[in-house]
């Protein structure tokens, strides 16, 4: 979980360079003025790129906070681990 969070922080830092780590952990479109539709798309792309995942269309509108990203990425990782274990 920690490595997901730290990698995700780097993604947020790239998209929102004015945010410090503390604000990144609490980031949502409501708390970050720069989080508009363009920033959201950029963030999704950076996350896809850095974590080598593809965000399904139906998840796009749900990934609207740092925590939401953490949970979704953790689920992806667990799912991958289960697949590998089989």
């Amino acid at each position, binding site marked *: 979980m920690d490595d997901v969070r730290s990698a995700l922080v780097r993604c947020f830092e790239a998209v929102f*360079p004015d945010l410090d780590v503390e604000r990144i952990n609490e980031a949502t479109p409501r708390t970050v003025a720069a989080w508009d539709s*363009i920033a959201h*798309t950029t963030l999704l792309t*950076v996350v896809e*790129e850095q974590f080598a995942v593809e965000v399904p269309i139906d998840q796009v509108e749900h990934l609207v906070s740092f925590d939401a990203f953490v949970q979704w990425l953790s689920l992806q990782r667990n799912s991958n681990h289960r697949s590998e274990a089989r």
Partner: protein
Amino acid sequence: MATIDSERTGEESGFAGSAGIIWALVDALRIVNGARERTGRELDVVLACGFTPLHLATFLNATLQATTSRPVRITAGGYNDLLGTLRKIVGERENTAATAVVVEWQDLDLRLGVRHLGGWGPAVLADVLRNAEAATQRLATALEALAETRLVALCLPTLPLPPIPQTAGWQTSGFELELAHLVSAFGARMSRVNGLRVLHEGRLARLSPMSERFDLKSELLTGFPYSRRHAAAVGHLLGALMQERAPKKGLITDLDDTLWNGLLGEIGSGAVSWDLSHHSHEHGVYQQFVGALAEAGVLIGVVSKNDGLLVEKTLQRSDLLLRPDLIYPVEAGWGPKSAGVARVLEAWNVAPDSVVFVDDSPLELAEVKAAFPDIVCQRFPKGDPKALWTLLEYLRDAFGKPMILDDDKIRVASLRANAARKSDLVAADSDEFLSTIEARVTVDFKNDPKDTRALELVNKTNQFNINGHRYLESDWRNYLAHPNSLLLRVSYKDKFGPLGTIAVLTGRRVGTTLRIDTWVMSCRAFSRRVEHQCIRQLFSRFDFESLTIDFCQTERNGPVAEFLNSIGAKPENAGTVVYREEFERRCPPMFHDVRELAHG
């Protein structure tokens, strides 16, 4: 910095356009973020496209930020209104530095995109073609007006056309060909506009394969149709198009095994070749390329270890694919190539960093590089057509200009006119270079009459050959069988690799002297002081105060005479005497690790 892809096109990329580096989006963002504190006059760039620019703007920004110290500001145009954006910029008083214009199919007709469902039936397609033709005309007019006031980098449609079901996917439809023709004609017209540069689809295809360019999900969600990789590639190349880089000015080329196949001094003017029948066509391709560079105004000079008269004669061959009047200067001689390069630079009056040197020998390249670190040195890859292609592409990048001007074409004539003043440059002292190449000389005094490898070298060497004598194998064996005769074979290697046996010497003890009857040395070993080492080894092994060399001047053995003069021995046909004391006084420093081959 992490990259997801990279490719090299030469020893030095020189500028971003040739390096072909594709950044990850996160890295591009970091570059852009890192440049936020820059101050000074902004580089204002408009990115005009009909779609949401998203990552394309980021990659273009990062590319420009990476190549300038100025702050860069990218302004995007309106969505779905490329023509309107262009007309708006034309009407603006305040000029931006440059405009990047990206045309996609939907800019020619919205029905060529997927966000507008206007139909793909046959009747619709005919209308699409008419619309597209009119759109290219309007775009052309706007772009011509735009290019009058600022630099324009134009990217023609890069995405695959939608899978319009007229034909199966492996059959091109007439509609697709008509569209391609239309865009091609539009691009050709634009390429002739001064101040407008068209992005090269072939280079783009290397960085971004056609099948990986379109991102339907992104197009549907955000109106941005490019995959991340494709956005990176287009942004990168648009940035390269906008750079005001200085192309290289001059190409200095070697001759033997580079401009042509074969060693001129060995096989003569008529036998060097560059054609299919001699399996030397790669040299013809290179010649043709260099000829085209010359006609485009690139300075072409020659530096070759060769006989000047022979070179002059060969450069006049009617089948040469490079006009001899466009080659200037020609430096043919026996000194270090760096000295020849120095004279070329003087004649051209250009700085080393504006020059590319091409030679087939890694050693020669290294010697020139050591003397002129700023010169780009490229190896001519004899026998490797694939590498030749890479070399030509590199040279195209290095010398390419947005447009060829009339001034470019007269440069060589102008230089020739000014060439009355002679260069007074002295040969570069190469001690520093020679001391670093880890040269090892192996001497072998074994007198083996059956060894025909030594004879082979004797019978094929012309330039460093004391008398040009040829031997039949039987004569050779008989000579070596005499109890007073000696055979010295010398091998050479350095950090660039082995040259193998490069010198052969035979002699006889006659009274109080050693008489040298045969001495040849490969031209590959010139300027490495191997000839000096040969003499030293003889004096070291035999307790004589002098050697007598059976010198006989030939048409091609000028290097021997030059060498003998340099060590204080007057080249005379009756026999040239080399005195130990005089030799040691004049001998330059040698940096060879000398080993004698032991025979059990």
